[in-house]
């Protein structure tokens, strides 16, 4: 189901992702956000250079790293049996449209529990200056047969 040997494995950084203003709006509408995430003048009046992303937006960056793991033949993860267990985002600073982000994923742990596997990923997200902006921590449950 999951190869326990991937614990501790670190995957290469994902290509730079430019946070686009309209992508922020698209994501904001999908999570039913209000004008705080849609209105550029409002964001500027709050002191930001551009739209601030909704708090869970870094999942888009995390997803890029996860795709690398799910496609890794060594990891042996069956995507169709994956259920999300938990998720957390720890921010160092707000992410705004115009940021260029990359992510680096490490497999923090692989555990077995009652026929299921639980894999925890820690994805560090960096800006163009190589400063950490957010850490996304995610546990996937891979359900047994």
């Amino acid at each position: 189901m999951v190869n326990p040997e991937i614990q501790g494995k670190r995957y290469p950084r994902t290509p730079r992702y430019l946070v686009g203003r309209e992508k922020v709006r698209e994501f904001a509408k999908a999570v039913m956000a209000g004008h705080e995430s849609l209105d550029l003048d409002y964001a500027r009046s709050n002191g930001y250079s551009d739209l601030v992303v909704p708090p869970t937006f870094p999942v888009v960056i995390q997803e890029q790293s996860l795709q690398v793991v799910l496609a890794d033949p060594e990891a042996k993860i069956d995507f169709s049996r994956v259920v999300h267990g938990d998720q957390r985002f720890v921010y160092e600073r707000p992410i705004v449209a115009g940021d260029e982000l990359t992510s680096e994923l490490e497999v923090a742990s692989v555990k077995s529990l009652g026929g299921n596997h639980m894999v925890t990923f820690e994805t560090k997200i960096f800006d163009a200056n190589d400063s950490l902006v957010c850490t996304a921590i995610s546990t996937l449950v891979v359900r047994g047969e």
Partner: protein
Amino acid sequence: MPRFEELEVGQQVAASEYKFSRDSLVRYAGASGDFNTIHYRDDIAQAVGLPGVLAHGMLTMGVSVQPVVSWLGDAGKVLDYGVRFTKPVVVPPYGYALVKVSATVAQLDAENRKARLDLTTSFEENNVLGKAQVWVQL
């Protein structure tokens, strides 16, 4: 922007209701890039033993924090947000699943002017998120 001094532990600061339809799931799949088929295909959801098509946990998580963001008036004041996915939101092919969210002050850090809000997100009277905690800067 709410004032830190006016907050009290136990106080409810925001509440809202959201309708999750299949359209919501397709829209979220596109916006997030998560195209796991259990979120929009009945046949595949059934084949892997699920009760039906499920909302993305990340959609539920993303929506649940929105009442807090509106209350703050600024998504940039969210410092830390974590949840556990305890029960799925099953979204029917027609109509919608009604998801209810409320946010309550759980902890105050006067020195740093930070507050922890705990979210309750329910669907059909069940809590669908566990340990849903948001730290915000005021």
